[in-house]
């Protein structure tokens, strides 16, 4: 059974189509990264999963339950870190987590949960005085109440410093090891890359890519980039490099040749350069960054947007 299943999901706000015929399946037990630029429809999709927002058309099922009609059952088994939330300024961290325990009908130890997310020291202070990062940790502690089967985290690293973001990833990983499905959104590729098994890229309400991290890399046309030093480099050098089998493009860059390799092993290509162009003094392999990939997926149809 899929943990989350959206089919033909659309949501229109006035004349803005925030989510446009979205199909998305998240398998049980995986960590799924939901990636897209701001305003792509990530939060609207998550708001529909949580029944904050009603879809204009289409259906959503979460752990086999309809998100609209059986929302309460869904949320009993789900931990949520929403986007654009606000804590109760006058209640303490401990009171927040205790409230979540009462609502879920479990008797977890609030301080133990706060300790896990790193804010146990502030358990008895009013949450109104927390920093953004502390609030994020507090709400994560609330999300962990009752050992949920599914974690829905909307931009979880917002407000966290790099160290906090790493701790967040460790918690996500630990929960996943326990069997929890994790669905989290981000507009920052490297966070998703660090922890996700599978990624979906959303842009303008559409899912423009859905694959494993490696699969996404393989799916790029760019292939790998090599930067090679072969002594003196001029335009003839570039032309000779370009004529080698497996080289799809070459150019001069800081006195070296930058080339992209497709359809042939990079070692073969290096050998050919060594033979045909001249002895290789040094080389560097640049992996196509997912960031580039992300940019390509999400800016491809910019013309339509203007």
């Amino acid at each position: 059974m899929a943990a989350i299943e959206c089919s033909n999901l659309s949501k229109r706000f006035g004349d803005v189509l925030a989510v446009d015929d979205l199909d998305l399946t998240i398998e049980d037990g995986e960590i799924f990264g939901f990636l897209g630029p701001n305003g792509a429809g990530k939060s609207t999709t998550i708001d529909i999963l949580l029944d904050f927002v009603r879809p204009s058309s289409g259906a959503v099922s979460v752990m086999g339950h309809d998100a609209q009609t059986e929302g309460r059952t869904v949320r009993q088994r789900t931990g949520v870190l929403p986007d654009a939330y606000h804590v109760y300024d006058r209640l303490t961290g401990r009171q927040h987590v205790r409230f979540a325990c009462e609502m879920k009908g479990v008797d977890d130890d609030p301080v133990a949960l706060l300790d896990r997310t790193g804010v146990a020291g502030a358990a008895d202070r009013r949450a109104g005085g927390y920093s953004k990062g502390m609030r994020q940790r507090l709400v994560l502690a609330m999300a962990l109440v009752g050992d949920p089967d599914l974690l829905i985290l909307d931009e979880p690293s917002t407000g966290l410093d790099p160290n906090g973001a790493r701790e967040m990833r460790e918690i996500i990983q630990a929960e996943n090891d326990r069997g929890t499905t994790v669905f989290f959104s981000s507009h920052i590729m490297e966070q998703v890359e660090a922890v996700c098994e599978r990624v979906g890229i959303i842009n303008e309400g559409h899912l423009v890519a859905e694959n494993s991290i490696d699969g996404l890399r393989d799916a790029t046309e760019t292939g790998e980039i090599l930067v090679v030093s072969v002594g003196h480099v001029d335009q003839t050098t570039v032309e000779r490099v370009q004529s080698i089998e497996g080289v799809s493009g070459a150019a001069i860059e800081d006195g070296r040749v930058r080339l992209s390799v497709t359809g042939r092993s990079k070692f073969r290509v290096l050998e050919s350069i060594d033979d045909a162009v001249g002895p290789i003094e040094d080389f560097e392999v640049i992996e196509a960054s997912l960031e580039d990939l992300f940019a390509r997926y999400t800016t491809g149809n910019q013309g339509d947007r203007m």
Partner: protein
Amino acid sequence: MSSLTVARKDFRDAIHSRALWALVLTFLVFSVITAYGYTEAPELFGGEAEATFGGLVFFLLAFTALFVPLVAIVVGYKSIAGERELGSIKLLLSLPTTRKQVFVGKVLGRGAVLMTGLSIGIVVGLLVGAVLIGSIDLYALVAFVGLTLLFTAVYAVIMVSISATTGSTTRATTYAIGFFLLFELIWDVVPLAIVYVVEGFSIPSEFPPWVYIVTQVSPSTAYSSGLLALLPDIADSLGENTGGGTAGDVGSGPEPFYQTPELGLVMLAFWLVVPLVVGYVRFERADL
């Protein structure tokens, strides 16, 4: 039952609010001053020269009828709209609950806050008055406190329901104050204006019977009438008008129900139910 959990959290949240305590304190002080003022110089306020406990009750009513709506606006207008505007409603609704339970919980929580604060003020004011007067009418005390709690509940329902219809506190404030202005400040004029228009732009010598019904729509008028209905003997002794348009014709047999002060109690029941339905339906359908 997650409504009760929400109500408890809301109550806990509210009792940490200084603004609320300032209001309760203000109310306490006013109610004591009112009680003291009445017992010192009853002839200034009522027909009698002698201060009585019953007289005090009716005197205090004029004060609570104005004060309860104002406090209810302060306590209630942001209850749901504020959580929607800020986004804390997302924390709440991320938990296993439903909008219905959140709405009911808010009504219960804010209602409890209002009723606690106001009943402290009233009871202290009345007890101070009873000591100064040297007598107490327990039935009048219980009837007045009970009715005032009902009136408070009505206003808690109205204000939380108004708050549930919108995600903007600016709009919630406008609606809440608009409600107060319409039903509490200018409502007396409304039936007169209708009569004036219906009668061809002139004031008739005798008002048609429906005028009384329309006046009772105002919650505070209904509240006052309710007290007349519960304490008719005291009302008579104070010379309070216990009837509608036909109050003068005492000998003309029993009046129809809709012309008696009991109508006030029905109107309070109306205000307890109708805003709940409207507020809930609007909240249930909203995109948060």
